């Protein structure tokens, strides 16, 4: 039971990060390696809000989300706007986002120093028992709030005008241009929302991942795994992949050791992509046909 809760908890949070990477890649052809730095920006934003405004959970959350969105906007301004439409956009954007990530990490060192910061318990310290195992408030709080946010993203994608634009862009960039969807505008929406989601995920992980300059690397890696496994651009794929990745992590950590987690997760990718090169989205499509 504990494994199940851990799985759902990790899945919810990795899903938030993975969806951003997946949408950015599918919609813009941009593998955003600065997403980890965006995650870290959200953490620092939450910490900064706690220290300077109020330690009320809503303020901390807002700090993480807003600063995450701002960091996403910085990626848009410094990578997408100058490079989009130039030859070799796909490789150049990877290199530029990697450069931005390095600059970001070193900026964190410069401004905040290497020390870890602490963020309050956001969902209190209550615990309750379910089917014989103890569930902490921050796990259940993370699961519920992440699911709600994820649902909101899906609804926005399906229902809103800009959501239709983003989905169209992931399907056929030329067709999107022909119906009047501006790539730059859509890119802004994708990167800012991805940043906000990463910031939100960062706050949810703030009990485990303390704000420190290099904190973004592991979440970036997990997000990439989720995006790859899910099939790029597929939200349902990313959600299912997040569960697979979360389950792998929970089971590996329980029966082997935490240090084996990345190994088994990459093993999972290798197997799934061998069978279905388009990831979970490919499996979904095959079963529909």
């Amino acid at each position: 039971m504990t494994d199940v809760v851990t799985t759902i908890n990790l899945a919810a949070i990795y899903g938030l990060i993975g969806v951003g990477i997946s949408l950015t890649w599918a919609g813009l052809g941009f593998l955003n390696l600065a997403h980890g730095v965006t995650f870290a920006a959200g953490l620092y934003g939450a910490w900064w809000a706690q220290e300077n405004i109020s330690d009320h959970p809503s303020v901390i959350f807002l700090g993480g989300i807003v600063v995450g969105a701002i960091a996403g906007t910085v990626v848009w301004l410094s990578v997408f706007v100058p490079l989009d439409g130039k030859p070799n956009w796909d490789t150049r954007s990877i290199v530029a986002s990697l450069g931005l990530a390095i600059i970001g990490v070193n900026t964190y060192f410069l401004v905040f120093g290497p020390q870890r910061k602490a963020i309050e318990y956001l969902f209190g310290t209550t615990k309750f028992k379910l089917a014989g195992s103890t569930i902490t408030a921050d796990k259940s709080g993370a699961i519920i709030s992440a699911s709600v946010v994820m649902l909101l993203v899906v609804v926005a994608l399906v229902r809103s005008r800009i959501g239709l634009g983003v989905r169209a862009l992931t399907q056929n960039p030329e067709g999107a241009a022909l119906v009047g969807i501006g790539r730059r505008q859509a890119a802004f929406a994708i990167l800012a929302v991805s940043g906000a989601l990463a910031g939100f995920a960062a706050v949810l992980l703030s009990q485990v991942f303390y704000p420190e300059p290099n904190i973004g690397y592991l979440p970036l890696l997990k997000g990439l795994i989720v995006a790859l496994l899910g099939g790029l651009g597929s939200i349902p794929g990313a959600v299912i992949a997040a569960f697979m990745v979360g389950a792998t992590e929970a089971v590996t950590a329980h029966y082997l050791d935490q240090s084996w987690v990345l190994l088994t997760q990459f093993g999972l990718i290798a197997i799934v992509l061998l069978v279905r090169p388009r990831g979970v989205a490919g499996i979904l499509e095959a079963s529909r046909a």
Partner: protein
Amino acid sequence: MTPVLDLRKLSAGYGPLRVLHEIDLAVAGGERVGLVGLNGHGKTTLLRSVMGLVDWRRGEIELDGKSILRTPAHRLARAGIVLMPQGDALFPGLSVRDNLDSGAFAAGWRERKKRRDRVLQLFPRLADRLDQAAGTLSGGERRMCSLGRGLMPDARIFLIDEPSLGLAPGVAAGLYSTLKELDLAGGTLILAEQNQTLLEGWIGKIVRIHGGRIVGIEPGGAPSDGGPAVDEGRRTGT
């Protein structure tokens, strides 16, 4: 009268390849123009170069007297130029409804629904397929979906690239009977078509393209032998 769309000495191509050679073509508002010529002689490139979907262009393209050479495709779409391209450029994973709705991207949802209903009257086949992914449609339905999407916005210039391509003759004929009846509300139509007989009787002007050059402009309606006439290209419509 200023032409709505004015191409002057327009050359265009892909990489080192030059497909169009100094095209001069002026199209007046409300005109229906047929681009006729063999495959690979520049019809598609001519339409795509208006939208900027080619590697390079030289010369001038004006919309209402203003140069649009530096305007990106999505801005042109918003300015009322709609291209229904070869290969349809649909969104295969999205439903037919979403594909159609994307055509009226800028409109409010009420207006979108109104226009979608109008399109569905033209292509009733699509009404049964609204929730189906566009990628699962048959070739003819896909073309209908693409044309339908192109008819969703409040466009003034319709560029249609070989709507009959790849379709069974019966399906193509059905599609053309719909196109003929189309009320473009004073809009301008430029239609590329290899098979000139499909244009006879309803297209006002036939522009012959051969080897990337305009080799003849003649009034539509008259039956012809279909071969590329050797004629000096001239500017019309001004």
